[in-house]
């Protein structure tokens, strides 16, 4: 496999705030990756750095083997769908789809037409008059129909209803299967996208804390429930992500419990439940030190 993105020791500071801190990771060609994390964790900043919209404070970024900054060879192959894309004031919906092909060599107008129809987008309406959800569907359609070899979706579906989101997932999967490309999806709706992802990056307070394939991550944590004594005895020095107690009962979420460990837990009379990707991300990122919340001030601008 080839790495489309290679990042080494990447740091981005805005004044005293470190939005991305010493990040090192790579993204393989033709995979769908999830970039997950809390508000203000650094997701958008990271994507802006990868698409040459911000300058790194230090570290190196290689996209298709080159620096993305001011690099047409790289950027013509990249589609970046932002949470709130701005358009010229007098633009109508149709103007977006008329101008999009100028920027994307692989633009598929027929596919765009089909999606406009499916998302029920009023093409003659002014952008300013659109609802939040309709604005999001423009981004989703541009992202899909551009067929860029590297596509970023940054929280693409603010205001999109459940039907439209499902439509987005279905079309993404279908089109990805027919036209393999590298997709990076940043979202808070982790449960909804969990099965679409092949690889998962979790960023917390600017640091990459998880960089793992989705399948192994999904089975990586287990919650054991039982009497307080038996849970404590079982936990021992295993790595615990989360603990809860109710009366005489206790539960502990244990990282990396293997088959033998699970058998031992069952033998000790404990109930086992698997931990979903969403719960796992919550448990990994919920314990952040309060001081880090200073970073939630609009570093995404």
């Amino acid at each position: 496999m080839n790495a489309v993105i290679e990042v080494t020791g990447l740091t981005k500071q805005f004044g005293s705030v470190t939005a991305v801190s010493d990040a090192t990771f790579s993204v393989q060609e033709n995979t769908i990756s999830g970039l997950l994390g809390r508000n203000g964790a650094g997701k958008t900043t990271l994507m802006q750095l990868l698409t040459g919209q911000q300058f790194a404070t230090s570290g190196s970024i290689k996209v298709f083997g080159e620096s993305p900054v001011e690099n047409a060879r790289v950027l013509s192959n990249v589609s970046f769908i932002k949470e709130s894309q701005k358009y010229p004031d007098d633009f109508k919906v149709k103007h977006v789809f008329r101008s999009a092909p100028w920027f994307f060599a692989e633009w598929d107008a027929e596919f765009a037409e089909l999606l406009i129809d499916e998302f029920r987008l009023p093409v003659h309406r002014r952008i300013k008059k659109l609802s939040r959800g309709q604005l999001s569907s423009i981004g989703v359609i541009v992202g899909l129909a551009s067929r860029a070899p590297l596509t970023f979706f940054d929280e693409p579906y603010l205001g999109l209803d459940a039907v439209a989101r499902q439509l987005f997932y279905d079309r993404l999967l279908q089109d990805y299967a027919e036209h393999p490309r590298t997709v990076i999806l940043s979202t808070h709706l982790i449960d909804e996208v969990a099965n679409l992802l092949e690889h998962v990056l979790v960023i917390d307070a600017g640091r990459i804390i998880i960089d793992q394939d989705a399948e192994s991550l999904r089975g990586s944590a287990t919650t054991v429930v039982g009497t307080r004594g038996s849970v404590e005895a079982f936990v021992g020095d295993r790595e615990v992500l989360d603990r809860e107690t109710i009366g005489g009962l206790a539960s502990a979420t244990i990282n990396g419990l293997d088959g033998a460990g699970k058998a031992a837990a069952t033998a000790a009379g404990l109930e086992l439940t698997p931990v979903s990707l969403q719960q796992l991300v919550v448990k990994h990122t919920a314990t952040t030190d309060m001081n880090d919340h200073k970073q939630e001030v609009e570093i995404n601008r």
Partner: protein
Amino acid sequence: MDESKPIFVQIAEQLENDILSAQMTEESQVPSTNELAAFYRINPATALKGITLLVENGIVYKKRGIGMFVAVGARDRIVAQRREQFAAQFVQPLVAEASKLGISASELADMIRKENQA
């Protein structure tokens, strides 16, 4: 989808179930990874892992340039494999729960016989 098992294992089991119930017969074509991905709403790479698991177990095989097909003897192999796992997967939990409830082995056997007649 069930969270307690990897998705690719569930895909493989689902296809095995279709073979067991004769919805897919030997030498018939198996859905492509893209079809499986779209149907189950999963990443195509995950679907491919499920198919690969079946190839390793001799349940399906690849016809170059055409697709994947159910192997001859696949059904017998699945039956043999599942029989091996039957005690651990079904009988042991059944006996464990029965003993918690004070159901004796002969009572349990009676219950199974009754179920079988129904």
